[in-house]
């Protein structure tokens, strides 16, 4: 195991009592200070992996260490380094946000005097201070998610694990949360993020692992992985309507409606040439966007290549565009 890693996993296997093998030998290293994306389709093993690291799931075999603390030998020391934001809401719905975060700090050995100060700091940062005395079950979905982030930060962990932290959160709150996560990452907290919003992973994370069928399917720098994408589809919004897609030699074009043109562009081609040719044809472009996010494109190719049914891929696409898979 790599003792300098924030998280080091070797040969991790998990077989549940019903015989399902959720993890089939995972090897993974996350460097200190990294913002790391852990992606995969539903049932790929992400939550099981996080469960083992946070000791909520017993492993079948393998080694896990957190900042050099082997969980088989120094479990409590390893756990002291971790803050976790789980996928499902798991705080006492009858307590107030302030009580919840102060108690959580206590479980990590933070004196109540210090915990009260930190509670104010993190609840304010996550725009929950006004709700500090409300009963937790009265909070909105987005507030509950933010409360779990505040709770996970109370002991100022060196490794923060977020399992779909922005699921079901509106875009404005999501972007506020991104800023906040960037800020704490910049201060040195290593972050591992699982998400269904691939735009989120692409925007925030520097490194990525894609887990599928209990194995690591891909592990790379985000930038390196994105460079591997050979073709992108751009969607152009046109000022005037067209009866048919213009024929541009070397490019695949199609009209999705009379004012929306889709063009596939490979790595070797360039956009200037497309615009020149469209100008010659008298086609005016008002705006342009990627058809799907680049990471999503790679993700779907990897997942489909590993034999997932189209329904699974469609669900992921829906998730990436704002719904939940």
């Amino acid at each position, binding site marked *: 195991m790599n003792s300098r890693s924030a998280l080091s996993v070797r040969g991790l296997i998990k077989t549940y009592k019903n015989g399902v093998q959720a993890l089939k030998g995972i090897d993974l290293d996350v460097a200190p200070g990294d913002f790391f994306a852990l992606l995969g389709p539903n049932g790929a093993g992400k939550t099981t992996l996080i469960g083992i690291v946070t*000791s909520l799931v017993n492993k079948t075999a393998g080694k896990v260490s957190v900042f050099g603390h082997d969980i088989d030998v120094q479990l409590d020391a390893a756990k*002291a380094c971790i803050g976790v934001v789980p996928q499902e809401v798991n705080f006492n719905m009858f*307590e107030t946000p302030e009580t919840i975060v102060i*108690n*959580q700090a*206590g479980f990590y*050995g933070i004196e109540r005097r210090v915990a009260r100060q930190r509670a104010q*700091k993190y609840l304010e940062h996550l725009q929950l201070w006004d709700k500090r005395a409300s009963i937790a079950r009265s909070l909105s979905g987005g507030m509950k998610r933010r409360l779990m982030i505040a709770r996970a930060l109370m002991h*100022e962990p060196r490794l923060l694990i977020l399992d779909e932290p922005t699921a079901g959160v509106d875009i404005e709150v999501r972007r506020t949360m991104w800023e906040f996560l960037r800020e704490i990452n910049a201060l040195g907290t290593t972050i591992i993020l699982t998400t269904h919003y691939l735009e989120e992973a692409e925007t925030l994370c520097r490194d990525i692992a894609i887990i599928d069928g209990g194995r690591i399917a891909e592990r790379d720098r985000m930038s390196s992985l994105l460079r591997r994408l050979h073709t992108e589809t751009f969607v152009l919004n046109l000022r005037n309507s067209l009866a048919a897609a213009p024929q541009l030699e070397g490019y695949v074009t199609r009209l999705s409606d009379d004012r929306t043109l889709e063009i596939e562009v490979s790595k070797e081609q360039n956009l200037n040439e497309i615009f020149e040719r469209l100008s010659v044809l008298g086609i005016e472009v008002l705006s342009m966007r990627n058809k799907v996010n680049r990471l999503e494109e790679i993700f779907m190719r990897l997942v489909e290549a590993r034999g997932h049914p189209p329904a699974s891929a469609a669900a992921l696409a829906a998730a990436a565009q704002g719904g939940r898979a």
Partner: protein
Amino acid sequence: MAAVAEVPINLGHIRWIGFKTIVIREYGRIIRIWGQTLVPSAVTAILYFVIFGSLIGRRVGQMGGFNYMQYIAPGLIMMSVITNSYANAVSSFFGAKFGKHVEEMLVAPLPNWIIVLGYVAGGVLRGLMVGVVVTTVSLIFTNLHVHHLFIILAAVLLTATVFSLGGLLNAVFAKNFDQVNWIPAFVLTPLTYFGGVFYSVSLLPEWAQRLSYANPILHMVNAFRYGFLGVSDVNVWLAFALMAMAAAILFGVLLVLMNRGTGLRE
């Protein structure tokens, strides 16, 4: 925000603060739902004193050399301690399992023995709080002697500990709210009523007396009663030995189960 720094991990300090936090949280829960935790036992005790102590008790006459109201008072106090320490541990821990907020402790650097001790302390705390309430109610109806204060305190603490551990064990195994109620309804209540709260076992036929001695609650109630009245149907020191043994065994079993992850970890 301050930059994250590598700070030395003091597990002893974390455990002590963690233990205190569980106890504070349990205390907060007892106070928050006082209508469920503190009041019912007072109402029940009043009913017992009015019906059994005052109305029926007058016709019973003396028992163990004391009037009936004085005789049943320690038993009623102990009954409320048993019921409440068990109920606190089982409902609080199962509630935490059901609501998944038990995970807050499971992911924290707290060993299982600290979690067990925290919940046991919570159960003992509620048992004692209710015990004080019922004692106060008792003093409205009768006067209580104190024969041996140390025995009273030791008996109540050990009994509350044993039943808090029992409640916790129930909660670890329970998969639904029905299973939380089975043991109190079908085991605890009959054992308590046959545990010498309302009578001396010397009134029973010999076979029933022998059977009664197998009931742990009989020993607890009588040790406690001895502390107040100086009379007991059992050997008080044997009663303490049994309570200590039961506490040690339950604690050991709970630790084994929790270390395995039974009912808590997949």
